[in-house]
């Protein structure tokens, strides 16, 4: 019973290196006689197992080999080396509209996809209403799929998979396409499915989805396993890697060792964390901010502080001078400002702090450092903030 549904052993995949007409012909001849031809390695030595009830997230940068890995797992592609063992019914949602015929209506495509999953005509009829209800695309059901938006294609695809209830569900970045409400619906469905003992293999760029749905994660980097284990460990490593990468690319937005002629921010911590990964804060939750500023002449500097929404809309701004906030001297040249927002009653979405080091007179502005944070919540009202109000 507890035999794994999926065992990948030292899986490797190579793709043809170049594809102009001559190279293709040469490759054809070489394959025919069993000789090697120019290939590049997309995946190498990938081993993992997925036991029933397990949920594994596969993460990695674009081109790391995630989609290729899923295709090997589903049996769409043959591995160049190693092996995949599969047990049970696998439901795969690879890319947009896999297996859909764009010329046919959604209704017809439901029947086609269901047949591809091995259903009989009677089974299709029986579950048709469930599928249509889940997809919830109204009159488009009788339109050719080529008229669908990408979101509608995903809706239909997911609705079919949801009706199939496979032993192992494999999805590739499809949650990113549907609209907010459909994403939530899918996530709720996957959560129920996992609670009911379902098994999941999810590829996503959204660490939020991976952490929410998966217990384990596998980080693919340049076609190899960079990390494999508990979802929080692996995703944290992954995010840290990206942070280091973006820091090294931008030369680092704050230089902790700065010792020049200007006032300058040298460290920013949100709730004690100096990473640049946006912090997640529940709606109405609190957030503490610590900013270390370098002062070239040893006088206590000022700090400018703004809160903006992701799109740049200003929410709030102030300075330490206006508020009467005083920094603590850390040493002769370093001062620390500590600000705490006890109740961030911003509406859910992405925001960021914009911080400026100012001279003690609060006249000259020297730099700008930004740190993002995300407000999580289920609010249905809209705008930037929830203004206190009463209905009568």
């Amino acid at each position, binding site marked *: 019973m507890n035999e794994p549904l999926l065992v990948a052993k030292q899986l490797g995949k190579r*793709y*043809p290196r170049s*594809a102009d*007409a001559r190279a*293709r*012909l040469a*490759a*054809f001849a070489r*394959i*025919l006689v*069993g000789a090697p031809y120019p290939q590049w390695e997309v995946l190498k030595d990938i081993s993992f197992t997925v036991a029933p009830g397990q949920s594994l997230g596969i993460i990695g940068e674009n081109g790391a080999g995630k989609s290729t890995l899923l*295709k090997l797992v*589903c*049996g*769409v*592609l*043959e*591995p*160049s080396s190693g092996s995949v063992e599969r047990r049970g019914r696998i439901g*795969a949602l*690879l*890319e947009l509209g*896999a*297996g859909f*015929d764009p*010329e046919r209506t959604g209704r017809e495509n439901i029947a*086609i996809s269901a*047949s*591809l999953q091995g259903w009989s005509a009677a089974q299709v009829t029986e579950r048709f209403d469930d599928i249509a209800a889940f997809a919830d695309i109204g009159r488009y059901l009788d339109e050719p799929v080529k008229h669908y938006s990408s979101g509608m294609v995903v809706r239909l695809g997911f609705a079919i998979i949801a009706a199939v209830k496979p032993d192992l569900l494999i999805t590739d970045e499809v949650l990113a396409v549907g609209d907010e409400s459909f994403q939530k619906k899918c996530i709720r469905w996957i959560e129920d499915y996992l609670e009911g003992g379902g098994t999941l293999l999810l590829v996503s760029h959204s660490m939020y989805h991976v952490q929410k749905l998966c217990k384990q994660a596998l980080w693919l980097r340049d076609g190899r396993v960079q990390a494999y284990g508990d979802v929080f460990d692996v995703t944290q490593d992954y995010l840290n890697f990206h942070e280091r990468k973006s820091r090294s690319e931008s030369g680092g937005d704050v230089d902790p060792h700065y010792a020049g002629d200007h006032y300058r921010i040298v460290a920013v911590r949100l709730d004690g964390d100096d990473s640049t990964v946006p912090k997640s804060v529940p709606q109405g939750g609190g957030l503490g901010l610590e900013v270390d500023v370098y002062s070239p002449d040893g006088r206590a500097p000022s700090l400018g502080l703004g809160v903006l929404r992701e799109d740049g809309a200003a929410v709030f701004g102030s300075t330490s001078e206006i508020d009467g906030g005083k920094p603590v001297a850390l040493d002769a040249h370093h001062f620390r400002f500590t600000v705490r927002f006890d109740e961030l009653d911003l509406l859910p979405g992405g925001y960021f702090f914009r911080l400026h080091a100012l001279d003690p007179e609060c006249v000259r502005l020297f730099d700008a450092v930004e740190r993002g944070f995300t407000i999580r919540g289920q609010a249905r009202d809209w705008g930037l903030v929830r203004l206190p109000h009463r209905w009568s």
Partner: protein
Amino acid sequence: MLGFLIRQDLRQRFSGNVLGTAWAVLAPLLQLAVFALVFAQIFKARVPGLDERGYVMFLALGMWPWSAFAEGISRGMTALTDHAGLLNKVAVSAWDVVAARVFAAFIVQGIGFLVVVPVLWFWQGTLSLAHWPLTLLSWAGLLALSLAIAQIVAICHVFARDTQPIIAYLLTAWMFLTPILYDPRILPEWLGSAMGFNPMAGLIAGVRDPLLWKNAAAALPWTSLLVALAALGLSAWMARRFRGHVREFL
């Protein structure tokens, strides 16, 4: 899965037509009318021992099996490239995708054959049904050979798109080199014996002759059947060799 793919292909061929599946019956009748007019009336083509109507019968009994064979190859050839999207997203076997096209061609042309033969029988009345089961074996041989060649050229077509015009040319040449429009007995000696190397000559005759000649020698085209079987083996070997290399080039 194969059955599903065949149904898909058939549906795809007939959907979008106003007359739909009626074409499966109508098209062969129209084609038969053209054959009768062009070959029997205009060219005044004849076969020794048969009159004008007999020639139309001769032609039809050879033309439909040939069409099934040729259409199986020409549509099977592009099956992999046409279904690149499906093959890259769904775990269907490449063999089945090609085979579905070939089977669908045989179903469509087979229906044409079954429509045309009774019509000819009413019209001319000299159809010989005594040995009809013998034709089945030759039909099977045609299917096997068409399937085998389709599988091979479908793989070639993935690697070199030049395959399509080359095969289209070869199929036309092959048709004229096969006794479909003419009786093999009218051929000069050297060409007649060269027909021994054309498996299609045997297979077409294997379908046509038992239905056409009352005293048709019940000899089966064994050599052609063996060639078809060997070709099938070769195509299976080739499909295995190219497994894991075809989708990667699509």
